């Protein structure tokens, strides 16, 4: 999910798909890290590229319990002289779960799943998350 979100964020993939055919075409593309990461790679920040506003985009596999990992990273930033407000850690799984619970308006099917990720990226880009 995170590699897809990063690809949308960086403009490699469109933020929306209208047909299943379009969705299937995108799924066939060899997205880096699209097959998931092994457990030993969990916790490693992987740089994906630079967004339109110059923001650096990373992906991070967190495993099943992301909370402590993300909290640790946020609290480590000041130790490295960084301002945590300059960083956004987006829990893609949590966002999609919210969509599943009906807290976010969604459309059904695989296109809906893709478009929810696109919507999440849009919100991140607009600084709404």
């Amino acid at each position: 999910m995170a590699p897809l979100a990063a690809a949308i964020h960086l403009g490699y993939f469109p933020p929306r798909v209208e047909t299943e055919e379009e969705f299937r075409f995108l799924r066939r593309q060899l997205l880096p890290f699209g097959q998931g990461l092994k457990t030993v790679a969990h916790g490693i920040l992987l740089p994906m590229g630079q967004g339109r506003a110059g923001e650096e985009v990373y992906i991070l596999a967190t495993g099943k319990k992301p909370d402590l990992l993300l909290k640790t990273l946020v609290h480590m930033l000041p130790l490295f002289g960084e301002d945590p407000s300059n960083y956004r850690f987006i829990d893609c799984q949590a966002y999609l779960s919210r969509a599943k619970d009906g807290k976010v308006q969604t459309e059904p099917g695989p296109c809906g799943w893709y478009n929810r990720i696109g919507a999440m990226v849009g919100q991140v880009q607009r600084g709404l998350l």
Partner: protein
Amino acid sequence: MKIIYHCYGRAHSSVVAACLHLGKLPMAGRVKKEEIMAIPEFDLAQADDWGEPYLMGRDELANEVYILGLNSQAPVCVRAILSLAGQLGQVSQIMLVNTLPAIGLATRLGGFISKKLNKPRVGKPLAALGILQALPRLRRLVRTVKTEIIRKVQDGEEETDYHYRW
């Protein structure tokens, strides 16, 4: 440099290792259970404190010494911290030291009773007793860390990432 002693809950082994490092506990000779229990941070941290580095002080070389609780997620969190440090070009500025392997069953059991079962009057003395048994190992660990720091300063070596798992 920032030295981070990390363990399960940031309440026992990392606290004592940091105290040894900072000279708040002696590196040789006998230590009483009461001295361990009198450390303000000993058996103090709660689950909410996990993931938050806590500054214990500065050592004789002005290195900052922190303690950190990583629950059972130490491997992934350590990878994340080192990865973040790498991205920020500061790997040489951080040393992560796992203190958990230095302690035995008594401290783990004491910690469990104090924190999980919420019975600190029983758990804290047991954890302190376990720390006394593990003190030679903790001292050896701290001694190795200090040797590494000195070696690093002398060598001017700045491209190694440090993570100790004794």
